[in-house]
């Protein structure tokens, strides 16, 4: 009974953090930050008694508006699947937080398969987009769904492979064990063992959340809003919130894998209550910092074209991540565990991977096969048009 009570409290606490604090504030932060980047003022009008609070009341107004909005659905939709799709998208993003270790005790379930669980459930998110696009019975939605599923499948491969290098370094897949393995000085963190993996993971995670510059599944200029075109009201919010939660999910996973989770480097106060609370605060701070970086990228880079996304995923990121896995495995086996030699060898290996990847990319630049084909097709079509 006591166990049940503690688990319930943990569930409430974690979801209060994720759903109650992070996600609504993300909407506000994103709007303020995009305003900052684009040299605008941003939302600042909503006020309670003349007090504007830097636009902080806008999320509240948004929530009230969206909850009371009419749920307008197309008459030719597939009734059941159209309703199920946003639930799947939202569910797959939220459930994964069950294994994120926010602190030594603040983790809902310490599964032996922690990281695998996250990848398994997060991979179901693609169904949300696919089913939504198909069930809406709309050409643009279907095109968006096709783009989304192709892109998410491609980048999931890279996402999984980049993590393998880190898992080899710490020889565990449990989320809490990964954090525990990064105790001590700061160079025990994953990022100092696998810097290339972090960069690859960050890019692939941005693609997995379908946010700009990887937002071609919604591509407003071509397919209106893509797979969630036929959604309004709370159903739309579930996609929208799911996207934010997924962003925080990958940020949280990056914190666990590369930034020591709740471990504060050089602070030897393991087991003391204040240290554990400080650890949770540190975890959230790193998480927010990575999410902020993702937002900055979103508002800085323009949208990729479809063939560019596929080129980047399959020809650049995937070979680089496979190379990283091979190099890491060789270094870990060839050098004594935990020594300075291993640490230096890992960094050298990472540098080699980067250099080889850049050299190959430079060599490939001259012969962009897809570009040639599109060019050839275009001339062919224009010739046909002339005849």
């Amino acid at each position, binding site marked *: 009974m006591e166990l049940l009570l503690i688990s319930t409290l943990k569930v409430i606490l974690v979801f209060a953090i994720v759903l109650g604090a992070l996600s609504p504030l993300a909407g506000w932060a994103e709007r303020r930050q995009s305003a900052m980047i684009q040299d605008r003022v941003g939302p600042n009008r909503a006020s309670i008694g003349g007090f504007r609070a830097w636009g902080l009341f806008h999320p509240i107004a948004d929530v009230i508006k969206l909850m009371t909005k009419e749920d307008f659905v197309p008459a030719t939709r*597939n009734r059941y*699947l159209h309703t199920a799709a946003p639930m799947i998208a939202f569910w797959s993003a939220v459930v994964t937080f069950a294994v994120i270790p926010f602190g030594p005790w603040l983790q809902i379930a310490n*599964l*032996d*398969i922690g990281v*695998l*669980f996250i*990848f*398994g*459930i997060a*991979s*179901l998110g*693609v*169904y949300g987009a*696919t*089913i939504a*696009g*198909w069930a809406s*019975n709309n*050409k643009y939605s*279907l095109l968006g*769904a*096709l783009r989304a*599923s*192709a892109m998410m*499948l491609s980048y*999931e491969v890279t996402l999984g492979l980049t993590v393998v290098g880190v898992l080899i370094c710490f020889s565990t*897949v449990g989320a809490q064990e990964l954090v525990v393995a990064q105790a001590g000085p700061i160079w025990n963190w994953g990022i100092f063992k696998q810097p290339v993996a972090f960069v690859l993971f960050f890019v692939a995670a941005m693609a997995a959340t379908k946010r700009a510059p990887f937002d071609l599944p919604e591509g407003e200029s071509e397919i209106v809003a893509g797979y969630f075109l036929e959604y309004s009201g709370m159903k739309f919010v579930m996609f929208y919130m799911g996207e934010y939660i997924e962003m925080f999910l990958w940020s949280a996973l990056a914190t666990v894998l590369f930034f020591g989770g709740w471990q504060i480097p050089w602070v030897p106060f393991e087991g003391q209550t204040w240290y554990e609370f400080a650890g949770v605060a540190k975890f959230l701070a790193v998480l927010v910092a990575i999410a902020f970086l993702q937002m900055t990228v979103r508002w800085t880079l323009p949208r990729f074209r479809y063939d560019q996304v596929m080129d980047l995923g399959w020809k650049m990121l995937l070979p680089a991540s496979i190379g990283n896995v091979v190099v890491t495995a060789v270094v870990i086996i060839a050098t004594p565990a935990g020594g300075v030699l291993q640490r230096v060898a890992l960094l050298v290996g990472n540098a080699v991977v980067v250099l080889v990847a850049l050299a190959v990319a430079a060599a490939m630049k001259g012969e962009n096969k897809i570009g040639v084909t599109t060019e050839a097709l275009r001339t*062919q079509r224009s010739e046909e048009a002339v005849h």
Partner: protein
Amino acid sequence: MNQLLEGLTLSDLTFYLVAALTIVSAAGVVFSKSIVYSAFALLGTFGGVAGLYLFLAADTIAIVQIMIYVGGILVLLLFAVMMTHKIESVDVTSRSMDLHKALPPAVVLIALIGVIAKKTEWKLLKAPDDNPITAKLGDAFLGDYLLPFEVASLVLVVALVGAVVMARREVKGDFSRKAEKESE
């Protein structure tokens, strides 16, 4: 164990629910007229089988089942279904059922399974609450069972290369035909 009814614990009830999900959605896969519904029903089957793995205390296998079959293969299947011609008209059917031909093998198979189930001595093992098998599995794959593991991946590579060869030939054919037309 929480007793819900006499002889029915919570975990029993969950087992029956998961088993029912597996069987009902498997029936949906076979009997559904729309190929898209079949594909979606397969989602339930795969999920149910993953649940059965969990009951066997094999959490790694369960999550790998979800990752590979649900997150990978089924998405590709749906992708292919959606790419098919005239997907917007919902009646893309899979009418390939022939009861007369299917019935005898099905009856024989069910009889065989029944006999095996009857003859086998089922031992009830108590599943351990905490059974970390991930590390053991990894050791087995890269140790004693390295050769079968590698051979299996070789089969997949062959299939992949074959698919690429087939897909590419078609494109080439199209281009050459167009070139022929132009030369005429």
